[in-house]
């Protein structure tokens, strides 16, 4: 419930202006959510819906992992430009990865381990896919 509330609040705060969403601010806050939950993932659900969820098999998360028997916390966000918003979130994640790793990152989809101090977390695994057919991401605190 806390996860859902957090995502809803962030969505209302950063994405409510349909023509001027604050994607950079929203992604920064996603890292803060992931610092608490261990992971945050998102997939395109339908026409105007995004499904944010806590991934159930986090890598290297200490203490905050969801038990496999529990349904992972999920939050559906409705947005007029849902697919575009997810593409922009993935684009921001790709740019963060590009800025923080020596690896040659593809903005169309990649995975990287980056150093990024958020709350008490310093190391993250970020993976994303950002193509016309598929958009999704996973942020994991290490």
């Amino acid at each position: 419930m806390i996860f859902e509330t957090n995502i809803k609040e962030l969505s209302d705060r950063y994405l409510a202006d349909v023509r001027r969403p604050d994607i950079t601010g929203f992604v920064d806050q996603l890292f803060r959510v992931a610092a608490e939950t261990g992971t945050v993932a998102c997939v395109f659900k339908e026409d105007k819906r995004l499904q944010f969820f806590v991934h159930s098999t986090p890598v290297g998360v200490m203490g905050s992992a969801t038990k496999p028997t529990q349904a992972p916390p999920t939050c559906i966000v409705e947005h007029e430009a849902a697919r575009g918003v997810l593409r922009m979130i993935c684009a921001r994640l790709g740019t963060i990865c590009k800025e923080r790793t020596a690896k040659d990152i593809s903005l169309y989809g990649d995975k990287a381990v980056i150093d990024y101090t958020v709350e008490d977390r310093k190391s993250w695994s970020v993976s994303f896919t950002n193509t016309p057919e598929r958009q999704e991401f996973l942020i994991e605190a290490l």
Partner: protein
Amino acid sequence: MAAPLSPNSPSEPTVLLRHGTTKLRADHIFHNGPDPNLVVGGDTANGLSTAPLGGPYPLGAPEDYARGKARNFPQEGGPAILEIEVPASIVALAVHPGGEVLFLPGFGLEELLTAWPQLSKRVYTP
């Protein structure tokens, strides 16, 4: 080598925007416009992501998208930048997340497509 800009648009103020892709796709969009149902190289172009000149580019630079797309589709002629001058009134309809201007169905894409034949535009290699 840069191709010349096509005939200029009317007197309304315009915004110079760039879209990074492959040569094949840039040429296709140049001639046909960013039709949301357009299929190029197996992809459906369900919008047009562009960026203003100069940056910063918190969501990625057009050159990086061009190089990435060319890497994914090596048979499409290499990286290319499609540069367009879009009337400010159409740009205002698009999504502006910061460092990017995103034309989507319902968010300026239809208006952009209608104005496309009159827009100044060119394709060049980054």
